[in-house]
């Protein structure tokens, strides 16, 4: 009965049960297509070696074990760059990149959302246009700019460009437009400066948008392998370490699965925690004419 309640469509008009049923069936099939690889990846991390290579392969684990994680720690303890170093590098890039992006993007979004001034329209148009091409377009000149700045082989080469990720500014600006003008006017009458209004009025009101920018920025940085910018082993990231491990071949399959799980669990957990805020922000994501 409870199950049926979940699929009932409350307060909806004009719904035929047969069509609903067929649509939910379609959703369930594709849901399985989406979920099975993830479930398999989770199970793999807990499989003992003999189960990893069983034929025909199975999705679910029979005798779960933590061996892969112990092996990972042992393997990385022996290498000359300890695993903790890769984790620290990834955390450094991800945390500074995400927090800095939220701060910079919201500081730039506030004037664009609430004021009209010389250049405001042009700047926003450029930001929207930049959503329409991928970062690959700018990769070659970026490499040259990085080398002129002397940033090759530093974490700055990954962190700094990510601070000005244009989707973040776009979503933040759209969300800020909802803040009532009266709130800002009132603060102005009380003599608050623009900086103060931004920091104490606007920022606390756009918390859902912070989380959205986080959920968009975090996985990209968390999954970075340093690209062509970082070549010193002690500056490399966890994702890079995973690549190295899986290249070790069949014998490293278990350890590889453990690292993959670590890489995947963090962004998914963050999304579970922030889902409702993200949806609330995305409601304002639309492009007006």
């Amino acid at each position, binding site marked *: 009965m409870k199950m049926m309640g979940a*699929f009932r469509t*409350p307060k909806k008009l*004009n*719904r035929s049960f047969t*069509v*609903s049923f067929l649509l939910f069936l379609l959703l369930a099939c*594709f849901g399985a297509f*989406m*979920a099975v*690889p993830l479930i398999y990846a989770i199970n793999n991390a807990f499989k003992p070696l003999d189960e990893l*290579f069983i*034929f*025909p*392969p199975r999705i679910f684990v029979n005798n779960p074990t933590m061996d892969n994680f112990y092996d990972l720690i042992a393997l990385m303890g022996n290498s000359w760059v300890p695993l903790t170093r890769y984790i620290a590098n990834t955390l450094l890039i991800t945390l500074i990149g995400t927090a800095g992006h939220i701060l910079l993007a919201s500081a*730039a979004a506030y*004037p*664009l959302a609430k004021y009209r*001034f*010389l250049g405001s329209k042009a700047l926003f148009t450029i930001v929207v*246009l*930049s*959503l*329409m*091409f*991928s970062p*690959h*377009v*700018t*990769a*070659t*000149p*970026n490499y*040259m*700019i990085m080398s002129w700045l002397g940033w090759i082989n530093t974490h700055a080469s990954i962190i*700094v*460009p990510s*601070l*000005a990720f244009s989707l973040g*500014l776009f979503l933040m600006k759209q969300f800020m437009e909802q803040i009532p003008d009266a709130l800002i006017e009132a603060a102005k009458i009380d003599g608050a400066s*623009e*900086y103060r209004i931004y920091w104490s009025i606007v920022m606390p009101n756009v918390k859902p948008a912070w989380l959205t920018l986080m*959920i968009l920025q975090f*996985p990209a940085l968390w999954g970075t392998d340093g690209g*062509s910018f970082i070549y010193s082993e002690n500056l490399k990231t966890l*994702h890079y370490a995973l690549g190295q491990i899986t290249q070790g071949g069949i014998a490293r399959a278990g350890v590889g699965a453990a690292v993959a799980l670590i*890489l*995947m669990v963090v962004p*998914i957990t963050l*999304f579970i925690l922030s*889902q*409702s805020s*993200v*949806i*609330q922000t*995305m*409601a304002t*994501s*639309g*492009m007006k*004419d």
Partner: protein
Amino acid sequence: MQTESTVPSVKGSIRPKKKAGLAYVVSELKRNKSLYLLMSPYMIIFFLFTVIPVVFSLALSFFYFNMLEFPRFVGWQNYSRLFLNDDIFMIALKNTLLFAVITGPVSYIACFVFAWIINELAPKIRAVMTLIFYAPSISGNVFFIWLIVFSGDSYGYLNGFLMKTGFILEPIQWLLDEKYILGIVIVVQLWLSLGTSFLAFIAGLQTIDKSLVEAGAVDGIRNRWQELWFITLPSMRPQLMFGAVMQITASFAVAEISIAMAGFPSVNYAAHTVVTHLMDYGTIRFEMGYASSIATFLFCLMIGTNILVQKMLRKIGE
């Protein structure tokens, strides 16, 4: 005389005055100093790593430059080489257009259809289903699982399954056979493609005015299809336009998945795309001028398609 004397009273009136020249710019900058200062950290980085590179790339596409010698002006030579003398670019272009034509619309429609069905569910199940469909796009490199599915030996899932059921006797080298590579990359790309636009659609559907639906029912809307066409789609136009930008840009930018699944370069360039071609010249051969002409072409292709589609979507429900 008289007009001059009225000038001070006009100043500060509601009429937006268009004072020409530098004086106006300076006064605007002064008046909004704090706003410009707030925006400056973001805008400096944004211009340095996004806007300037585009312009730079356009300029560099007319030069021969290898990072060592001084750039040499070559006019349209890079472009004529690209379109007339580069067979591999033609393969890359064909593959990219194929990806864009298939993954673009399919992923866009999938984002909408799944969001639309999920929206009918009770809130708790809705949250779970949203997570399931969105998770692949944020779970980093879990797509390596697909390498196991399509592995060329009999341990690969697909081979194992097909051999067990008797469809094939020998394992197929899925990722080394030109016939299959492109299709496999498309499947994996689609699996990963329910991202930001999917969330935007979920959000947009939840904010549709309920009274509009009720009014529609009174006005004779009989089933969900009519409701979709006459109420849902028109009310979601802003999100639909945003989602289109996201999906189009992503569908032209296929590269990482192709490299991870099919290798770089792939067998006979079967999964070579404009972006991997760009990577080849920009980061391996260091022919920066030629790479810039590829980048400029890609830029025009993406922006052009996006603007065209925006124009089309603006017509929905009009």
